[in-house]
């Protein structure tokens, strides 16, 4: 079915004026979007995929402008149209949804009202009919109890539901094009599937065309008709998922396909042919025998971390009814008396949906949060006895570090990348010599693949992947024994993820570091972790060696989780 193109971008180039000169963010990019089609723009962070769509919607930063090329929508030249015409088009004909749904919603306005606002703004409803139409929109995005949820505030909804509200707002006026910029990054795997299925179904039923911007090749492969691969501002290859995955032509595409962890046998297989692993890790068989050996050694050496009956309760506020009855409401139990051990050099995966208590568990182990009950034994000492503030200064702090989930939030907006990485060197390792600090920072940046030119930059000048790397370098600075990683590679491109995972594996071998790897991405857990713990509702419902749990899950819930991961070319032989 060949329909005429609804959006046609030809030789588009975008430049940014910065103090260091002009940056060519997008160079000569062309793509075509037809009605009913879904096109994916896949690329690493900093490749210009988001900037391309911002340029099409004309919502670039004030330092950016379209330097050449054109973007045509239904005969209208978007790059030349006046602002008044664009305001009309945005939301009504071309809609966009962004990565962080909470940032896209007004936190002090009920979600239903926000949908109604969009409708009224584009004259799709009057004040009298807006409420009805907004509730209908909520129903269409499969939010249960839409009448009640109309007056809910964004903070009362989960991340997945907020994203659905944003989708409802975007689709409220039945636009012809929907641009989705990383809509499911940060959502857990079951919610991701639900949101992507929703976008696909609505696209089909409304006869829309959509552009999906993502760094997840697997996701693009499952949901899109056509994939455009971008690198450093240029389009390097485009084609159907079948063509790209089975017969990639450009070396960059080949690297991307190889680095996507679906169906990979081991971590080394993720790396491109030209990149050698930092240290030679032999074939698959020796890796398995390694783990057997270290498994034997493990049983003999004491665990680096032992958690016994760890529990965290959050008190619930008393309502008027409780006052009248003279009762106290039962506290909310986030973590329900869990126990597990981590041995030196072992990596444990902690998986589960959002809200299951894994972040609370990792915060307690990292001693950023006080447990309500239970004990945490680290290197032979019960660290749950220390108060959070005492532990910050103690000797053990250097040996127990954490990498955070949201790279943007985990960096001080005022300090450069170099200062952020140097912070633990100065305060934990008490290094005072400036030159030594600088050398160490460079070495750490090198280890995580961060170019030295990026070190003097502030966080808002770095891309998401670069920020994530700074966070990892910072955590490694004090050479910890146990590293807690809270979704560290979620924001990273697959090729960088491959390098970082191999780095983590290598460090594990060399330094005997143990990991607690909290993640939604089951493929990554499968490759990196020796054992896996599945959490649900604050309890560990299944635990065991990774291969065993993934190949023969005992629990129904584990099976559900495994089934929700994006299927990479189902049924196509690799």
């Amino acid at each position, binding site marked *: 079915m060949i329909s005429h193109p609804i959006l046609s971008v030809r030789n588009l180039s975008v430049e940014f004026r910065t103090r260091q000169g002009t940056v060519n963010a997008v160079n000569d990019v062309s793509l075509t979007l037809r009605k009913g089609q879904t096109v994916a723009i896949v690329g690493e962070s900093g490749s210009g995929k988001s900037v391309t769509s911002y340029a099409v919607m004309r919502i670039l930063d004030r330092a950016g402008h379209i330097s050449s090329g054109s973007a045509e929508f239904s005969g209208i030249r978007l790059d030349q149209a006046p602002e008044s015409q664009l305001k009309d088009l945005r939301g009504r004909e071309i809609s966009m949804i962004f990565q962080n749904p909470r940032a896209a919603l007004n936190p002090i306005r009920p979600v239903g009202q926000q949908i109604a606002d969009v409708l009224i703004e584009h004259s799709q409803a009057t004040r009298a009919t807006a409420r009805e139409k907004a509730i209908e929109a909520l129903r269409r995005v499969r939010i249960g109890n839409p009448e009640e949820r109309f007056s809910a505030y964004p903070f009362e909804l989960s991340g997945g539901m907020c994203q659905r509200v944003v989708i409802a707002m975007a689709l409220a006026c039945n636009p012809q094009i929907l641009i989705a910029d990383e809509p499911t990054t940060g959502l857990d795997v079951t919610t991701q599937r639900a949101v992507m299925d929703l976008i696909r179904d609505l696209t089909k039923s409304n006869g829309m065309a959509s552009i999906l911007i993502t760094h997840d090749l697997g996701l693009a492969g499952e949901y899109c008709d056509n994939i455009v691969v971008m690198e450093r501002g240029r389009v390097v290859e485009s084609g159907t998922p079948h063509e790209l995955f089975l017969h990639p032509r450009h070396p960059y595409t080949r690297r991307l396909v190889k680095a996507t962890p679906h169906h990979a046998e081991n971590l080394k297989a993720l790396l491109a042919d030209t990149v050698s692993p930092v240290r030679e890790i032999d074939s698959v068989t020796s890796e398995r025998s390694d783990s057997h050996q270290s498994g034997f050694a493990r049983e003999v050496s004491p665990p680096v971390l032992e958690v016994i009956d760890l529990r965290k309760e959050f008190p619930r506020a008393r309502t008027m009814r409780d006052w009248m009855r003279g009762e106290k409401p039962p506290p909310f139990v986030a973590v329900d008396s869990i126990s597990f051990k981590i041995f030196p050099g072992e990596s444990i995966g902690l998986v589960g949906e959002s809200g299951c208590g894994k972040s609370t568990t990792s915060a307690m182990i990292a001693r950023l949060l006080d447990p309500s009950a239970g004990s945490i034994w680290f290197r032979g000492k019960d660290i749950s006895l220390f108060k959070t503030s005492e532990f910050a200064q103690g000797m053990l702090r250097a040996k127990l570090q954490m990498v955070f989930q949201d790279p943007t939030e985990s960096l*001080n*907006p005022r300090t450069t990348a170099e200062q952020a990485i140097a912070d633990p060197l100065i305060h934990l390792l008490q290094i005072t010599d400036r030159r030594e600090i600088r050398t160490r920072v460079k070495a750490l940046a090198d280890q995580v693949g961060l170019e030295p030119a990026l070190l003097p930059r*502030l966080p808002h000048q770095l891309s998401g992947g670069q920020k994530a790397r700074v966070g990892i370098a910072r955590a490694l600075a004090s050479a910890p024994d146990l590293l807690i990683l809270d979704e560290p590679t979620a924001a990273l491109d697959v090729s960088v993820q491959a390098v970082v995972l191999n780095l983590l594996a290598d460090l594990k071998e060399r330094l005997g570091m143990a990991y607690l790897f909290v993640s939604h991405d089951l493929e990554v857990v499968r490759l990196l972790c020796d054992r896996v713990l599945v959490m649900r509702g604050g309890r560990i419902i299944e635990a065991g060696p990774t291969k065993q749990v993934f190949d023969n899950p005992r629990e129904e819930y584990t099976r559900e989780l495994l089934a929700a991961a994006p299927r990479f070319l189902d049924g196509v032989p690799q």
Partner: protein
Amino acid sequence: MAKPLAHLRYVMASNPVTFLAFTLFGLMVFLGIFGPWIVPYDPLASTPTAALKPPSWQHWFGTDQVGRDVFSRVITATRLDLLISVSAVAMSFVIGGALGALSGFLGGWTDRILGRILDTIMAFPLFVLAMGIVAASGNTVENVVLATAIINLPFYARVARAEVATRRHAGWVQAAKLAGNSDLIILFGRIVPNILPPMMVQISLNMGWAILNAAGLSFIGLGVRPPTPEWGIMVAEGASYIVSGEWWLALFPGLALMTAVFTFNLMGDGMRDLVDPARRT
């Protein structure tokens, strides 16, 4: 030192309004420092024969009721007015900001008690408080500065408290804890620098207010007293002459006040641009 200067030049180049504001402020500071030496007449010298002369080539702003040159007095007054407002605002900013930051970071009882103290301060009208302080410890300029500083304290405390509370649970604060920083360093070394942009805007708005406060207080006789030249007193004394047609006594000091407040308000944006790292492209 080169980087902050380069950044200043960049900020001024990208926004002409900021440039205008900083230029005017620079002029005010210059007059404040060198004013008394460059004025044509002694601001205190009275020549009764030349009293109430309208603006002319000898007396650009005319003369007042005892023959003093209004122009010289307006220029000389810059120093005193700037001193009063800058010191009052500086005191408010430092003390109010620190209290607010502690309140926002620690929460709990600290927050509640400090909040009620601030409420009490906010309940006082400026003039009543100033009169109280003056009655207790004498009618001096220092006491007027103190009164102005106390009155403006709650505004800084509120802004600081809100901004710190928002950032208290941020990822980078947790990361700083992981890197071994003590709570005190985290609060004053990390969080407070991050809340400077909104505080800068508060400062600039407040400077205008502080000048008006000082002028108002001297209008009713507290603090600065004649014959010391100060814009507020000059407006007060000149007010009664407007009716009889000698408009220049009150107009020119009033214009100076207006220009000063205008400059400070315009500077707010510029100050924020200077301090906010996100503005650096």
